[in-house]
């Protein structure tokens, strides 16, 4: 993306909706610095009582896999059904823990 960006860098926004829950990605915004990003996130993404805690993360700090990585990254786990509990057969009448 262009460096002569009049809008400032992009920050990804994560909101925790209730104490104890994980922060969830809600979107992004533009801001010049971290305080501005945090305040803008509050103003933009919590107008309707959506949050109890906000994280803002510079977009540049996120490392993403690409569609080209898909096969190498994710397909090898397809044939490892032994990692899921339903792979195992419980004796008749035995109770789950």
């Amino acid at each position, binding site marked *: 993306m262009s460096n002569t960006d009049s*809008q*400032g860098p992009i920050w990804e926004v994560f909101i925790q909706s209730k104490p104890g829950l994980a922060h969830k990605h809600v979107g992004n*915004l*533009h*801001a*010049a*610095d971290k*305080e*501005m990003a945090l*305040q*803008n996130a*509050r*103003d*933009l993404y919590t*107008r309707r009582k959506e949050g109890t805690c906000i994280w803002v993360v510079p977009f540049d700090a996120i490392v993403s896999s690409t569609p080209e990585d898909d096969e190498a990254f994710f397909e090898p786990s397809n044939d490892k059904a032994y990692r899921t509990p339903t792979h195992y057969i419980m004796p008749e009448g035995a109770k789950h823990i």
Partner: protein
Amino acid sequence: MTTNEALINYCLRLGDSSLILGQRMSEWCSNGPILEEDIAMSNIALDLFGQARIMLTYAGKIEKKGRTENDLSFKRLEREFLNNLLSERPNGHFGDTVARNFFLSAFSFHLYSALKASADEQISAFAIKSLKEVTYHLRHSAEWIIRLGDGTEESHTKIQDSIENLWEYTEDLFAMNEVDKILIKEKIAIDLNTIKPLWNKTINEILTKATLNQPENSFMQSGSLDGMHSEVLGHLLTEMQFLPRAYPTAKW
């Protein structure tokens, strides 16, 4: 003057100041320097209108003449408004608005912090709620003071000018009269002299951080307690009150 009369007057001061500043902040809608700030300024305006509605409704209630928040907002005349002079200052450029809001939110922050302990339950509840809002307004404006002060040469000059130009309206924030005397005795209001040093400290800290100078007092404006405003207020009211005045019997 009875205590009730004093209290009505006091509520109007608080309510009018929030209302007029809210109206000013709404003028920014669709005019912000960046989309995100446009949204932030609207949020501030919404908080202020919320505050105004609480205080004006309360004033109408204790006045016992059946006036609503709308009657008090749209059917009073220039000299009847008791908002502080700073709140009616035109928006000017972004720096002027930031400087005005900074002075005002620092004032409201210290005022509401003290009014939380008011003997009047409504005032106290109002202060508790509003303090949360102005804490954010103060943080927002203070950060911008710092950004502009310590930003470019142009922004530094501009925000320093804004501060110089608005300084003469800051003394009016701390003006007191008979109303205050009565309400201080009843522990409803506070002596504004007690929060002045706190306000000064907040202003000084942020201006220093922003590499800006705090102006000296020279000629200082006054008069809001007597409904003596600047010319700009009449124009603001003309616009704000247009519909209820053009259609006095209409319901909206």
